């Protein structure tokens, strides 16, 4: 066996910290931020049976962070009896979105075609967003599995954004911007977002200007949302691990400096 180097200990330490904190299954008490509360209130206050469009605008690699968020939102919407139309503006998010919607629909005994429809992917996001503003059936003549649009009772009354209560963009990058700048600015449909933590600062200006109605972000956002829904979920389970990982990084920075100063002193003495 090859000799272990210092980085191996650093890696091992992080692994152990996260493994233990996740196995412990402790729910860290967290405060719900006003942002998350606003998102929750928005979905909660829509009249039952509202049609929401959920857009999966993320890549496959972001799934670990995005999934808990998406699940919370989908669960909330189904629980409130809303009807969902799924789309995707990034090819990689398409299959994932379909699976997530199927999975949550199953939990709440929702029927495909009546309570949810998944339209799938459309390339060229700006053109797709604009063209749905004119006509959704012409943009998506078929659903994800290739069945005609007219076949589904849910879609009977859905022609364009006028028949949709809002758009929820689930994103790991800047695609939400296009929903804001095209769907909201031009067709005045309320846009909300569930995003990766890194993107939150990017969207802050849109929240303060009101162009983005509400936003929930990161694992922390998912945990807060789960708390509001009063369900257990991977977001809340992950919070202790998240905080510990942060502390671990701080500890590593400090440890690195201790090592550095010890070595330097030794060198000075000798």
């Amino acid at each position, binding site marked *: 066996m*090859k000799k272990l180097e210092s980085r*191996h200990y650093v*890696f091992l330490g992080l*692994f152990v910290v*996260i*493994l233990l904190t*996740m*196995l412990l*299954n402790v729910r860290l008490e967290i405060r719900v931020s006003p942002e998350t509360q606003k998102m929750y209130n928005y979905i909660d206050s829509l009249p039952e049976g509202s049609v929401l469009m959920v857009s999966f605008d993320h890549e496959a*690699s*972001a*799934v*670990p*962070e995005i*999934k*808990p968020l998406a699940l919370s939102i989908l669960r909330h919407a189904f629980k409130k009896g809303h009807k969902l139309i799924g789309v995707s503006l990034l*090819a990689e998010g398409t299959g994932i979105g379909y699976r997530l919607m199927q999975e949550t629909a199953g939990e709440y005994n929702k029927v495909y075609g009546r309570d949810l429809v998944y339209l799938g992917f459309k*390339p*060229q996001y700006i053109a797709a967003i604009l063209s749905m503003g004119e006509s959704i059936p012409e943009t998506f003549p078929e659903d994800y599995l290739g069945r005609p649009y007219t076949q589904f009772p849910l879609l009977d009354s859905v022609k364009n954004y006028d028949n949709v209560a809002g758009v929820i963009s689930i994103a790991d990058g800047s695609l939400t911007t296009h929903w804001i700048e095209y769907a909201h600015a031009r067709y005045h449909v309320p846009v909300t977002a569930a995003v*990766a*933590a*890194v993107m939150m*600062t990017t969207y802050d200006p849109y929240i303060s200007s009101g162009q983005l109605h509400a936003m929930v972000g*990161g*694992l*922390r956002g998912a945990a807060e949302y789960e708390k509001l829904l009063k369900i257990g979920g*991977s977001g809340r*389970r*992950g919070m202790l*691990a*998240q905080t510990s*990982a*942060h502390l671990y*990084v701080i500890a590593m920075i400090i440890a690195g400096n201790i090592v550095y100063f010890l070595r330097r002193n030794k060198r000075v003495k000798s």
Partner: protein
Amino acid sequence: MDAGTVIAGILTLAILTFLYRDNPVYKLAESLLIGVSIGYFLVINWSNTIMDLMFVPLFTQGKLMLIIPLILGLLMFGRFNRKTTVLSRIPIAVLIGSGAGVAIPAMLDARTLQQMSATVTPILAPDGLPNISELVVMAGVITTLIYFYFSREHRGWWGKSATMGTYFLMIFFGTTFAYTVMSRMSTFIGRMEFLLSDFLKLTQ
């Protein structure tokens, strides 16, 4: 447990073994990832671009203008032979030329002008006292720009200002580093969640 989860779980572990060191299991997983992802992109490009964006509108809707990008695309095939390789310079010239043409106004606007205007805020608070935070911003932007000044050696007061600029740069780097840590940890926690609950069924 379905076969998909088992395979996904094994491959996840295979990639994680890299943290110990490079090994045959990781190498196999890596080769598979590279191969499959290239195949995936080939298919997606064929269906979303070549079919949906070009052939379908060209042949069923008669959009003849699409012949231009078709020819440009085909010229790239010139690269298959050393003698015809120069042909590929034409589509490349289109890409580079257009990119440069857009970049001049777009970069100037988004990067330079917008940032300039955003920096402008009164340095006097309504009560007539100086606004320290805004003074800091001004000092930061100017000294950092001085750091980026190339045609003068960093000596004397000029050099001191540039050094000041590097302090601001370091604050920025420290801040962004810390800010991204959270997201990176979430990603790994998400993977562990999959391993522990979907694959190994240890937590619920």
